[in-house]
């Protein structure tokens, strides 16, 4: 079967604005894939850990004992 367009599909994005009770902006952010940020080629460029620290340009190593 012929492929109509290999590039087609669903692409989802999200963003948010957090305001206090007076309407002042406290914070803005994005809604991203499982704490992972990727570039246009799918390469991981950053992730945010559960402590809300964003890690950029780093590798995750497995330090578990054998």
């Amino acid at each position, binding site marked *: 079967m012929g492929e109509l367009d290999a590039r087609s599909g*669903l692409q*989802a994005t999200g*963003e948010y604005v957090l305001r206090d*009770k007076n309407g002042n902006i406290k914070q803005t952010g994005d809604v991203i894939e499982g704490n992972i940020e990727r570039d246009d080629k799918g390469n991981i460029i950053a992730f945010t850990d559960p402590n809300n620290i964003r890690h950029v340009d780093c590798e995750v190593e497995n330090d578990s004992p054998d």
Partner: protein
Amino acid sequence: MTVPTNAGFAEMAKHATGTGTPAAFTFIAVGEGTGQVASDTQLADEILTGDSVGLERDTAGTISTVQTTVPDDTASWVHVFTATGTKTVSEAGIFNLATENAGDMLIVGDLSPVAAMVSGDTLTLTMKCQFKAD
């Protein structure tokens, strides 16, 4: 980038063909979990009505189609959640059922950074899903 789910693809195929009585994706929910992927069907830890913090699943306030590449190629959901208590929101998703922790999840993602809310705070959440042609 937010994640379109496997269930979301299936429901979109039903909508396109009119088979299987698909329901429209009109509900938005937030949670305290993280790390959901395409194979997941619900949030990791959805904030529920029983949590009594005003952040439970709701019909999105504004639902529309907008242009990303060509006119009306993108579904858009915008909703304002108002906290009545303290809660840290870390994930969000779009659903086709009002019932909490149920229905099909179209797209899901983690908030980066997480949104720590106290009573009176509002969270304006915008989620989009483009039927991408390029």
